[in-house]
């Protein structure tokens, strides 16, 4: 059944790699011991956690004591933000961007209600921030600058290394939500000014329900979940051993494939992009084409609506993609990212995101290119807009 699916929505989630599934399985069956227990039966579980920590640390250029396992990217984001405020009582400001994931954006909005001042960096029509604006907004009151590594919708890469230096120059901490970047592009945190980095297992072929937070050595830290002493007292809760083993294996695979994959994914993406632009009139690519994840294409088709396109794509070839249109989410507002970029409403509602993984093939691109022009044409024939 899943073989028939053409899955090009890998920024939403990814399939669990077979090697990852194999690596986690023993901890759901025979080695079910609690890693904190003293008897040898729990040994394999405890060992698996430490092995996974080594693999994940290697993937991002960290040391093992800088990795804290969490339940998801959102938990990692909340932990970093709340910790930065808790450990710097005198600083009451946060700087972030208008295009963050809701996991950061909504935490910031809640903090505003509690009296924290939050500035949101604007973006230009390609979704880029202005480093001078950022510099002007960081002050001695700033507790944290939090800017995503890569945007989930348009794939833009943000200048996090520079921003981290900028934050440090004013004594502020720096966090980056790197959920979309880890495993897709090389990241080497050693010697960098990045204090916190969030990542999530299910975006790199591990299962849902496992994430991690990188916390730079010696950076003051306040746990988000209090309780047991797990993760050296930094994150309470019995470890998700199978999930952690899976994330470790996924990190290992990512590191193995990273260099070749970046080339392969960019080739698929660029072929799809060129093909769609050539075959569908009034289409336009969104984002910063110079600084973009290799796997992501966000493209809008004017005068038609995203949900209708997605359902037709599925109908035509079980193609799974996503859209920034309002109708797909149940909210009445289209994508906050595309709106922040000031996109024309005629284009906004018809935006589609294709995101690839190592399991995609040329055939997938061929199929999309074969059906898309017909879908666009059929929906435009229904639409009252865009006619001369």
């Amino acid at each position: 059944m899943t073989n028939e699916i053409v899955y090009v929505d890998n920024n939403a989630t990814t399939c669990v790699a077979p090697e990852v599934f194999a690596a986690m399985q023993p901890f759901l069956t025979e080695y079910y011991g609690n890693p904190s227990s003293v008897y040898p039966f729990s040994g394999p579980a405890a060992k698996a956690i430490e092995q996974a920590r080594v693999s994940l640390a290697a993937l991002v250029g960290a040391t093992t004591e800088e990795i804290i396992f969490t339940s998801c990217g959102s938990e990692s984001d909340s932990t970093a933000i709340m910790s930065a405020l808790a450990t710097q009582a005198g600083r009451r400001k946060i700087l972030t961007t208008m295009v963050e994931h809701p996991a950061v954006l909504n935490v910031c909005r809640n903090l505003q209600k509690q009296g924290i001042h939050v500035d949101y960096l604007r973006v230009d029509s390609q979704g880029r921030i202005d480093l001078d604006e950022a510099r002007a907004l960081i002050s001695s009151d700033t507790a944290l600058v939090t800017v995503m590594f890569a945007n989930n919708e348009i794939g833009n890469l943000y200048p996090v290394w520079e921003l981290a230096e900028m934050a440090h120059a004013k004594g502020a901490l720096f966090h980056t939500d790197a959920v979309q970047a880890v495993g897709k592009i090389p990241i080497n945190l050693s010697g960098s000014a990045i204090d916190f980095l969030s990542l999530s297992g299910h975006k790199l072929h591990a299962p849902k329900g496992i994430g991690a937070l990188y916390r730079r050595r010696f950076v003051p830290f306040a746990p988000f979940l209090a309780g047991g002493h797990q993760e050296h007292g930094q994150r309470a809760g019995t470890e998700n051993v199978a999930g952690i083993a899976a994330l470790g294996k996924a990190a290992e695979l990512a590191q193995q494939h990273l260099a070749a994959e970046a080339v392969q994914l960019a080739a698929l993406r660029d072929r799809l992009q060129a093909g769609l632009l050539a075959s569908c009139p009034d289409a336009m690519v969104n984002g910063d084409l110079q600084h973009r994840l290799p796997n992501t294409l966000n493209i809008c088709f004017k005068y038609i609506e995203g949900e209708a396109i997605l359902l037709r794509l599925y109908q035509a070839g079980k193609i799974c993609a996503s859209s920034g249109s309002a109708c797909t989410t149940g909210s009445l507002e289209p994508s906050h990212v595309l709106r922040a970029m000031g996109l024309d409403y005629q284009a906004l509602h018809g935006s589609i995101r294709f995101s690839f993984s190592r399991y995609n093939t040329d055939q997938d691109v061929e199929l999309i290119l074969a059906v898309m022009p017909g879908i666009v044409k059929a929906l435009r024939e229904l639409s009252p807009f865009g006619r001369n």
Partner: protein
Amino acid sequence: MWNYSEKVMDHFLNPRNVGEIVAADGVGEVGNIVCGDAMKLYIKLSADKQHIDQVGFQTFGCASAIASASALTEMLRGKSLAEAAALTNQDIAHYLGELPEEKMHCSVMGMEAFQAAMHDIRKKHPELNLPGGENDLTGEDRIVCQCFSISERKIKEVVQQNHLTTVEHVTHYCKAGGGCGGCKGEIQSILDKLNGSAAAASPAAARPAPGAPLTNLQKMKLVQETFDEVIRPGLMKDGGDAELVDIDGDTVYVRLQGRCASCPSATQTLKHWVEAKLRELVSTALAVEEVKG
């Protein structure tokens, strides 16, 4: 994902009666591209002008918007004008084997397009003396939701026809309140009035009645409360915020932050919205002054 019925998917993938009718007796156009859905409905009457002979449509929107429009055209074809006038958005939803609640506004859009087309028929054929059709922009046709241009009449209609009880429902059925959220209080009052719920049920009842004389202390407390519970949450929804700087007599000094980036009718400035809320919930004597910087 949405759980669409087979009939919705059928009408979405194989829409009936698509396209413009050149010599239509009535054309109704509703929605706009900013809101994410729009529909144009064309009606051609029979020679004796008593029946609907041909119907055509064009829709910009999601699957359920296209399916609702297609279903509506099938339902209208062959009907007498009187029969057609009795249709409601519920009939469209039933015809399609129900719509997800969040998508009910698509069926409402179909009915709006039909009403707009009827209005056009009345204008083009005054000799038919069709009943109804006057618009009263100061009364019930006053726009309550500025973001999606939804009138009080429309809100009352969806509330009554669909037995709605919450603001969230109203948003699902006609989008009102789904943009900046500034009109949610007003939608609640419309609901309260229609559903006869005693004002005592709302927390605002603990406040002195609007218009009642307030002591300075009461006024300051109320302004602060309104600010924290209504105004700031309203602005924050869009990444904006405001700070209450000072209250001097009836002048409230406010510092505005961020912007109402999502509201298409952003010309209606934040200051006016803040002032309107304070006047509505505290005292009509209040004026807002913006403190810059």
